[in-house]
């Protein structure tokens, strides 16, 4: 085989592919098929580089969205595929990654803050201000009540054990860092993440 596998994988990449496959002679077919086949849907879509949100292989993604980021065009993600330049996944994706579009647009994605009062049987939609004001109030009241400044031996311990936090597993390191700052500056110690499960 004239091509090494590396080169082979390479030319399946988006940019290179067009020219290399064209050289192999697939281009001519293109002219004909253009009239018969489904129009290529990404021709002018905006391409954004991203990383898969699932496992830790961290496959590179190309996210295609409608619109060219003009002021009046509201970007909407229409397709996601692997980034052929990424050294690990080289354009491939697993069945989860290949279906990322459906999680971005899942019908069960949340759009509005919702609140369930004690004993209620349903959620009701609330404003962000209501939700965050109420959460902060609940947290402060409990912290003021249960904060431990010194232990029995008189050591300053400054901990708060009655409210806990579970951190995400897919949020960015920047989010994590900010979360750490908020959580620890409150003295929170019941703090964990999804590392084990």
């Amino acid at each position, binding site marked *: 085989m004239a091509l090494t596998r590396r080169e082979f994988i390479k030319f*399946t990449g988006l940019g290179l592919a067009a020219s290399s496959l064209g050289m192999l002679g*697939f281009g001519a*077919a293109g002219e004909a098929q253009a*009239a*018969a086949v489904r129009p290529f849907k990404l021709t002018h879509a905006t391409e954004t580089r991203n990383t898969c949100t699932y496992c830790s292989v961290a496959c590179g993604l190309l996210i295609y969205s409608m619109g060219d980021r003009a002021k009046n065009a509201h970007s909407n993600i229409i397709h996601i595929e*692997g980034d052929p330049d990424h050294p690990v996944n080289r354009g491939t*994706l697993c*069945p989860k990654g290949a279906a990322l579009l459906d999680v971005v647009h899942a019908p069960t994605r949340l759009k509005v803050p919702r609140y369930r009062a004690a004993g209620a049987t349903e959620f009701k939609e609330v404003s962000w201000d209501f939700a965050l004001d109420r959460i902060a109030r609940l947290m402060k009241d409990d912290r003021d009540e249960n904060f431990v400044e010194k232990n029995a031996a008189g050591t300053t311990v400054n901990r708060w054990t009655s409210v806990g936090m579970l951190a995400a597993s897919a949020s960015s390191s920047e989010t994590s860092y900010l979360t750490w700052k908020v959580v620890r500056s409150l003295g929170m110690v019941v703090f964990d993440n999804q590392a084990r499960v």
Partner: protein
Amino acid sequence: MSDLQSQDFIRISASTMTPPSARSHEDQVAKLIDVSRCIGCKACQAACMEWNDLRQDIGHFEGSYQNPDDLSPSVWTLMKFAEYENEQGNLEWLIRKDGCMHCADPGCLKACPAPGAIVQYANGIVDFVSDKCIGCGYCVKGCPFDIPRISKVDHKSYKCTLCSDRVSVGLEPACVKACPTGAIMFGSKADMTEWAGERIEDLKSRGFSNAGLYDPQAVGGTHVMYVLHHADRPSLYSGLPDHPQISPVVSAWKGILKPLAMIGIAAAALAGIFHGVTEGPNEVTEKDEEEGERALNETEKTP
């Protein structure tokens, strides 16, 4: 035909014309599915559904990882799983991606009665042009691999297009790109055949002495080929046909019967015409009328 560049078709369904053949140097493409590298992850299925905007109804667990349970108008490719215990008593999990084989001599195209509803591009891709499809289901009968499925909604036939929309702009098909282990490769048919040879050597060195390429010549070879560890028994892989060919029944139906039937019908009509011209009409004569009247009257009088 519409505004297609017909030079780039090498076969068109229900066409009595030989397609133009001036462009004779277009490379044939092929998808090579190396079953020995396939982990059955269904990334190809997901990528196919995502790219082609296909979503089957959510089904049930049916006692296998095979989901959905069958190909359908919205399932163009499907992983099939077979648990096989070999002669040594060791388990082999033979997983095969099923879908259109893009035959060089496509049975579906042969059977199709709607002009231009099935076409074969010069690069070998067999594509369904749904605009022209009449939903008769003949392609289902023509296919040696049981691939096309007719939609109950729009009554059109669907199957893998080999992502003709992607290939036409110089990209590989969506399943090929997604495949995490490189079990699906795409390139020129010559390159794929050669690469398959390397893979078969490797498999033989690992004890699969019957490893081989599945590129059945009875259908002129295919543009989707398999590297199989047990090329001597393709049917182990969830019923991949051992000897696929266009059924002789279909060949008879779509081959010899067509001209014979036309000749037969025409002959009957012509016979009539020539008979009419040579023998003329069989007319009732005046004498007949008289005789007839007489016969009627006679009896009337006799009772």
